[in-house]
């Protein structure tokens, strides 16, 4: 199967115009599978951490959104234990005009602004609402423990 022009162009652009704090590198043997690294945003409990994610472009991409998941353990109300992400642009608000880079930027923004009212990890969201300070401290500890480069 030939690689769709869209995927080639996007990949080229990801390499040519780097986004600060984000990298996405396709596998040599599978152009639809990317190793992703996102730096924790500054002034967030994830600051100083580097988070690994895997990203896969399904056959009907870009009609359907990319599949993406955290590989690094992370304490966040919108990310569950399996690393799945609750983000509207990955679901109902996906548009085929969106790109990998925009999605990765949204994920980075989500790290900077957790939203416990729309949780995926219910226990974490609960903690976040009850005692935000303690939750942020846990997130910071997890970052130290699991996301240190």
């Amino acid at each position: 199967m030939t690689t769709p022009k869209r995927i080639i162009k996007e990949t080229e652009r990801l390499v040519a115009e780097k986004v600060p704090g984000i990298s996405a590198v396709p596998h040599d043997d599978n152009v639809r599978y990317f190793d992703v690294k996102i730096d924790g945003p500054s002034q967030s409990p994830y600051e100083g951490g580097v988070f690994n994610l895997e990203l896969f472009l399904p056959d009907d991409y870009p009609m359907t959104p990319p599949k993406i998941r955290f590989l690094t353990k992370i304490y966040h109300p919108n990310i569950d234990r399996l690393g799945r992400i609750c983000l509207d642009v990955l679901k109902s608000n996906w548009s085929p005009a969106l790109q990998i880079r925009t999605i990765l930027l949204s994920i980075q923004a989500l790290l900077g602004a957790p939203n416990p009212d729309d949780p995926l990890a219910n226990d974490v969201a609960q903690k976040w609402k009850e005692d935000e300070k303690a939750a942020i401290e846990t997130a910071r500890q997890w970052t130290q423990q699991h996301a240190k480069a």
Partner: protein
Amino acid sequence: MLPLFHPLMQRLDSDFDIDQDDVGFESQDKDIIPAKHAYEVDFTVYSPEEIQGHQDKQIAEVSNILGQPPEATAILLRHARWNKERLIDQYMEKTDEVLERAGLGDTADAHPPRLERIPGFVCDICCEDDADLDTFAMICGHRFCVDCYKQYLQTKIKNEGEAARIRCPGDGCNRIVDSKSLDLLVSANLKDRYQELLTRTYVDDKDHLRWCPAPNCVYAVDCRIKDKDLMRIVPTVHCECSHFFCFGCSLNDHQPAPCSLVKKWLKKCEDDSETANWISANTKECPKCHSTIEKNGGCNHMTCRKCRNEFCWMCMGVWSEHGTSWYNCNRFEEKSGHEARDAQARSRQSLERYLHYYNRYANHEQSAKLDKDIFLKTEKKMTQLQNTTGMSWIEVQFLDSASQALQQCRQTLKWTYAFAYYLARNNLTEIFEDNQKDLEMAVENLSEMFEKPIDQLQGLKVEMMDKTAYCTKRRIILLDDTAQNLKEGKSLVRSLVLVTCTNQPLGQWKFNVTLP
């Protein structure tokens, strides 16, 4: 996403049943199937054609009032979730805003949708830039090549089942793809699917309409029961396809237990199933010789093949005692409160209590399945019997009636146990349990006859027909009594809380749980 039903959205002052907004529209052109008993509700069954008819009628009417063409009116109505009063009000007040929000702003007939070739265009979706690329954009200006636009619509309609509110593929754009644009871009067979989905959204958007949940059934049921009344009414409806289901929650008929109890009960059974493996226990040991016995019929009267011991499947007690003393295996004798003082004993007792009701519940569920299997087998044998004895097809129909009655009664009995589990004891509980006992006994008798060898069935015909009629009658009495009492709990249900309190007025159900 907006929930279709939200209790807070219901007007709390209105008395129940009639939806003021829609009176007359769906109800005038077809007979309501009237409720005869306290446990029955009024409802109407509609075919897809009738549902389409309702939509067309409403579109035509509103189209006249708004002075908008039918296509645009349809979009407006769907966008307003078919609340035509609100749509008309808002349209009169702020026309432009309403049009804009429905994705119809400024379109005007001056800009009919068309394909265009634009020099230097690059499609953001596929990255193609050929000079002869056909492109399409709605008035919002988000332009894509026509292949991408088509593929997008196909994905939305075919894979995601969207129809009424498909948005522009542009990122963050809320413009809704109108039907004229769709006509231009979508293939004929996809258009059929689109129409079908549009019809579906009409039913989904109406609180008083529901699809029959039976597989492949195309009918919808209209029932004017409000969410807040589901505490005291169990709205079982009967589709043309013969499926009985609850209008409140779409589950199979679960009378006499209200939806919220059913939900609670099913959740409990699910939660407890992991810790207790007795759930799937379809085999038991003979209480006398301990050989393994598999239940292979619907009846509870078990006879051990090995030692001929006759016992009751439910309580494992000797069967002869069930015959002489009253059939008392439906009731869990509450132990005295003193015994339960220590926490462990209490939890053990509560598990025991739960198991008591659960086992009876599960037993009827299982038996209903077995009764069905047996009927299939019997049907085959009856065909042989017709050939050998000369009984006609009509003459063997009593077996079909018996089988149907058995299943219906077991379905009811099953839920009486979930219901009883949540009931606190009072005078009403006694009456309820008597009714339950009566029905259960009749059902077991009928089930036992049903399992008799084929050559005896001919001689049992009259007796079986009587028993069938009796079972049906007892079921109606039980449901009627229970429903009546539920309804009369009106004042309590009004406050939306039913709790155990010590001075319960006579004639009301008392539950051990707080219901929403």
